C-alpha cells in the first residue's frame, strides 16, 4: 500500500489488498465479490482469489471452517490477488487465527468484536481473547460489535433471529463502503434482484448495509478513509471473470466461430469441475455435455464426438489426466482434433486438491506410450483462459491434433477484469473438412503446408473410411506394420505439431529486449513474475521477463530471446519441469532455476530477493 499523498483524513493509495475472512456461514464470498464489483465500477483494476475451506461443512467457528476472499485493487494494472493484505476484515476468532499471518505489520484489521466470546475463542485455539491480550499491538485494530449492531438495527423488523444474524456481512460491507468511498447503490439493486421473491430479506440486508455505513461514518475509530483512483484502462465493456468460466466461454466461442458443435465428455474433479458445470448450462448454444462414468469415458466419448464432427473437449485435473493417457495416444494416431483442459493441482496422487501447482507439465508433454507428440498451451491469468482456450481449440481444429491446455487452481478460482470481445473479431477458425464425394479423398492425405489430414465427417457422402489406434499407411490409411511406414508416420506426426510454431505468435519480452537477467516462467505464475520483475525494473535493474504460453511447440524466437541476456532463471511452482524441457530443447543456454512446491504462489518479496541475489553475482 504505497502512499501517494495524505490529505486530511484520506489516504490515497496506488493499490490495496483487502481480505474478508469468517466462518463458512458468514457469507464472505458474496461480501468479497460485491466489494470487488464496487471497485471495478469505480474504475479500479483488480484481481481476486477465494480461499475456501477444504471441508464441505466443517464445525462452526473452527479453523477448518474458515472461508476467505481476497481482492487486490489499484489505480494501476493489477497482476495478482496480492501477497499480504492491507485490510483484513475478520468475522470470528478462528479466521483471525488462520489469517493474521497474511496481514502486513501495519494492516488495518476490522473485527466483529461481538463474535469474540468464550466458546468461539476457545474453539479457535486461543487461550486468551486476542483482542485484549496485546497480541495485536502495532496493527490498526478497529473493534466493532458487528453482530450486535446488526441485530439492533433490525430490531424493528419481524424477522427470525437467524436471518438477522445472516445479514451481518452486509453491515461489514457498509463499513467497507464508507472506508473506501464507495456508493452502495449497485449493491442495493443487486440485493433487490437476488432476493426478488423475499421482500423481507431485501429490506433486512439493505438496512444492515446502511447501518454499517452510518456506523463507520460516526465512530472515531476510523482514523482515515482510503481512496484508490481509477486505473488507466482501455475503453470498452468489462466484466469480472473467473478462470474456469473464461475457459468454458473460450471453448463456446471457438465452437460458434468454427461452426463445429461443442461436445464435452467429463468427470467431476477439483479444481476443474466448474468448467463442466458451466458448459452444462449452455445448451442454448448447442453444447452437448455428458457427465461420464470416469475420466477414460470422458476422453473416449470426446474422441468419438470428434470423429463424428464436433469440437470435442474433455476437462480434468492431474489424476484425471493420468487416466486419459492411453486415449490421448489414440487421438494422436487418429489425428483428430481434441481439446483436453487440465486444471493443475498439487500432486502426486490426490495430493492437495485445493492447492495449486505447475507440476503436470511433464505429464502433458510426455505422459503417453510411444512417440506421441501433441500441442501444449498454458493460459496465464483468469481472464486470458478465454483467449488460450479459444486458441487451443482453433489450433487443434485447424491442425488436426489433440491439444492439452494447462491452467491451474489459482487461475481457475481467481478472477479479474475481462474486456469483453466481440466473437466476430476473434480470429477465424477453418478446420480442414473433406468435401463430399471428393474422388481424391484418402483418410491420411495431408495439407502440404500444415501436414494436417482432412476431417471426413460420418454422414458425408463418398467419404466412408476406417481409422483407429493401429498404425496406418500414410495417405491410404490402411493398417500397416511396415517398418519404414511406421517411421515415416512417427516423423510426420511430430513434424505436424512442430509446424504449428509458424502459426503462433513470437515470444514477447516484458521489459528491455536484452539485459543482465531474463526471468523465464510459464502459465499461471505470470502475475507474480510480472509484479516482481516490474518492481525491479522501476528500481533500474536490467531485468526482463519471458512468460511462455505456447509450450509445445515453443515460439520460433525462443533461442533468440534467451541469447540476449547474461543470465537466465526459470521460475516454476514445481521441481523444475520447464527448465528440464528447455535444457533439452535449447541446450546451448545455461539456466538457473528457482522452484517452490508448497501449494502456494510465489510472493513478490521472495522473487525480488532471488533476482537481486542473481544480479549481484554478475
Amino acid at each position: 500500500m504505497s502512499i501517494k499523498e495524505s490529505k486530511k483524513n484520506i489516504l490515497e493509495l496506488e493499490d490495496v489488498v483487502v481480505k474478508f475472512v469468517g466462518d463458512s456461514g458468514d457469507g464472505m464470498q458474496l461480501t468479497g465479490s460485491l466489494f470487488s464489483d464496487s471497485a471495478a465500477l469505480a474504475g479500479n483494476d483488480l484481481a481476486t482469489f477465494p480461499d475456501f475451506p477444504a471441508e464441505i461443512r466443517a464445525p462452526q467457528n473452527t479453523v477448518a471452517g474458515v472461508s476467505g476472499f481476497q481482492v487486490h485493487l489499484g489505480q494501476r494494472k493489477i497482476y495478482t490477488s496480492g501477497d499480504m493484505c492491507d485490510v483484513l476484515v475478520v468475522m470470528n476468532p478462528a479466521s483471525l487465527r488462520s489469517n493474521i499471518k497474511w496481514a502486513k505489520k501495519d494492516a488495518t484489521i476490522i473485527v466483529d468484536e461481538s463474535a469474540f466470546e468464550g466458546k468461539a475463542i476457545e474453539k479457535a485455539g486461543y487461550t486468551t481473547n486476542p483482542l485484549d491480550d496485546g497480541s495485536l499491538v502495532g496493527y490498526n485494530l478497529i473493534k466493532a460489535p458487528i453482530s450486535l449492531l446488526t441485530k439492533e438495527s433490525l430490531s424493528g423488523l419481524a424477522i427470525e433471529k437467524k436471518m438477522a444474524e445472516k445479514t451481518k456481512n452486509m453491515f461489514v460491507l457498509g463499513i467497507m463502503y464508507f472506508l473506501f468511498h464507495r456508493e452502495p447503490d449497485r449493491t442495493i439493486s443487486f440485493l433487490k434482484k437476488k432476493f426478488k421473491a423475499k421482500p423481507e430479506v431485501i429490506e433486512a440486508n439493505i438496512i444492515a448495509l446502511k447501518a454499517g455505513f452510518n456506523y463507520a461514518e460516526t465512530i472515531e475509530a476510523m482514523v482515515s478513509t482510503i481512496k484508490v483512483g481509477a486505473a488507466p484502462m482501455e475503453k470498452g465493456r468489462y466484466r469480472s471473470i473467473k478462470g474456469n468460466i473464461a475457459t468454458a466461454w473460450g471453448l463456446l466461442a471457438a465452437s460458434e466461430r468454427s461452426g463445429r458443435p461443442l461436445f464435452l465428455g467429463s468427470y467431476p474433479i477439483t479444481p476443474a469441475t466448474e468448467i463442466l458445470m458451466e458448459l452444462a448450462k449452455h445448451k442454448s448454444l448447442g453444447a452437448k455435455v455428458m457427465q461420464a462414468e470416469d475420466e477414460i469415458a470422458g476422453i473416449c466419448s470426446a474422441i468419438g464426438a470428434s470423429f463424428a464432427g464436433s469440437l470435442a473437449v474433455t476437462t480434468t485435473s492431474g489424476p484425471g489426466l493420468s487416466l486419459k493417457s492411453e486415449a490421448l495416444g489414440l487421438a494422436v494416431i487418429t489425428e483428430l482434433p481434441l481439446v483436453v483442459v487440465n486444471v493443475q493441482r498439487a500432486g502426486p496422487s490426490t495430493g492437495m486438491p485445493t492447492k495449486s501447482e505447475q507440476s503436470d507439465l511433464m505429464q502433458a508433454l510426455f505422459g503417453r506410450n510411444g512417440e506421441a507428440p501433441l500441442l501444449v498451451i498454458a493460459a496465464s491469468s483468469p481472464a486470458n483462459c478465454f483467449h488460450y482456450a479459444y486458441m487451443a481449440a482453433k489450433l487443434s481444429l485447424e491442425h488436426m491434433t489433440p491439444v492439452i491446455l494447462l491452467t491451474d487452481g489459482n487461475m481457475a478460482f481467481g478472477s479479474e477484469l475481462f474486456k469483453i470481445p466481440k466473437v466476430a473479431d476473434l480470429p477465424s477458425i477453418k478446420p480442414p473438412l473433406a468435401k463430399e464425394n471428393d474422388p481424391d479423398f484418402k483418410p491420411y492425405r495431408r495439407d502440404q503446408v500444415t501436414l494436417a489430414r482432412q476431417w471426413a465427417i460420418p454422414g458425408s457422402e463418398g467419404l466412408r473410411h476406417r481409422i483407429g489406434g493401429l498404425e496406418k499407411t500414410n495417405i491410404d490409411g490402411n493398417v500397416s506394420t511396415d517398418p519404414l511406414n511406421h517411421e515415416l508416420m512417427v516423423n510426420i506426426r511430430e513434424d505436424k505439431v512442430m509446424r504449428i510454431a509458424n502459426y503462433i505468435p513470437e515470444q514477447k519480452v516484458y521489459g528491455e529486449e536484452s539485459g543482465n537477467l531474463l526471468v523465464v516462467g510459464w502459465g499461471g505464475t505470470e502475475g507474480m513474475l510480472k509484479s516482481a520483475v516490474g518492481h525491479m525494473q522501476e528500481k533500474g535493474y536490467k531485468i526482463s521477463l519471458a512468460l511462455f504460453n505456447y509450450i509445445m511447440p515453443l515460439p520460433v524466437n525462443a533461442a533468440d530471446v534467451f541469447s540476449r541476456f547474461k543470465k537466465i532463471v526459470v521460475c516454476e511452482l514445481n521441481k523444475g519441469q520447464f527448465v528440464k524441457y528447455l535444457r533439452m530443447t535449447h541446450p546451448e543456454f545455461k539456466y538457473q532455476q528457482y522452484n517452490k512446491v508448497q501449494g502456494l504462489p510465489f510472493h513478490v518479496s521472495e522473487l525480488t530477493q532471488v533476482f537481486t541475489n542473481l544480479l549481484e553475482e554478475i
Partner: protein
Amino acid sequence: MLDKSIEKSPIQLSKEDFASDQMVKWCPGCGGHAILAAVENVFPRIGYKKENFTIVSGIGCSSRFPYYVDTFGFHGIHGRAAAIGSGVKIANPGQSVWIATGDGDSMAIGGNHFIHIIRRNIDVNILLFNNQIYGLTKGQYSPTTPMGQVTKTSPQGTIEHPFVTAGLVMGAQGTFFARIPDNNLKLMTDVLYEAAKHDGTSVVEILENCVIFNDKAHAFYTSKENRDEHQLILKHGEPMVFGKNKEMGIMLKETRLLAVKIGEGGVTEKDILVHDQYNPDPGIHRMVGRMTGPDYPVVFGVIRSAKSFTYDDKVEEQIDYAKQNSKIQTVDDLLNSGETWEI
C-alpha cells in the same frame, strides 16, 4: 421402429455393397466370419445410406470388425468402444451406430463403460462377440469363461465365477437383450434387425466359436447334434417350448423356473410360459436369460425389448428447449450477460 431421422438409401443396397476392400484376417472357421455375413445381410435390409452407418470397436479379434465393412468405422482402444460409440451417437444422432466388442473388451477392461451405456440407454447396437476367451492375446480366460476351465492363465482351472451376460445387462437396466449362436445365419440376421429397430442400447450376445483357443465352447447348446435338445428359440407371444418335437417347455412353479415335458405329470400347454419380450418388468427375462444346462435349455432370440426413452433423444430435446427459451442465443449474448460495465 427404425429411426426415421436417419436418411435412407435411395437405391436398394446389397450385401456386396457393404464389403470393404480389406482382407478379412480372422482364422478360418472363426465365428467372426458368420457374424460379418449377418451384418452385411442386415444393413441393406435396414436400408440406411452407407454413409449413415458407423461401426466402433475396442481391441480384440472381434474388434477388427470395422475394417471389414464399407461404412464409417473407428477401431478404438481396449474396453472403450462403448464410450467412443456414445460420443459418436450423441454428437451425430443421424448415424446408426454399431459397436463390435469382445467378452473381455466389454466385461473386463471396459465393464464400466458397458454398464453405463446400457444404463443411459444410448441408441446404439452392441455386437458382443462372446467366445469365452481372450482370442487376440492367445487364450487367457475371460470374465465369461466357465468356472474350472483350464486356459493359459488358469492351468489348474479358473477359480472365478463367470458373468452371465444376460444378468449383467439386465442388472444394468438394459432395455434390449438378445442372444444368438454364430451358426444360425437366419436367426442372427433377424435378431440384428430387431436390435436395429429398438430405441436404446441393444445388446446382442453372439456365442462365437474361437476355433483356435476355445473350440466348441458353446457346442453343448449350439452344435447340430445338441441344438434341438438344448436350444430354446424365443418368439414373442409364443410359448417357451423346445426339444425335437417341441415337447418340452418352461414353466414357473412358485418362484422358480422348471423345464418340463408337456403331457407328463399333469403338465399341459397352458402351464408353459408365453414369451413377452416387451414386458417392462425384467423379472422373467432375467430368469430365462440366466438358464443354462444341463437342467435347462439356453434361450436364444430376443429376450428383452422394453420401451424407454433414449439418452440421445433427451439430449436433443433439452437443446431444443434451451434454444427456444434461453435469452442466450449467441456467445456475444453470453459474454454480455450478468454484471458488466463500460469504461
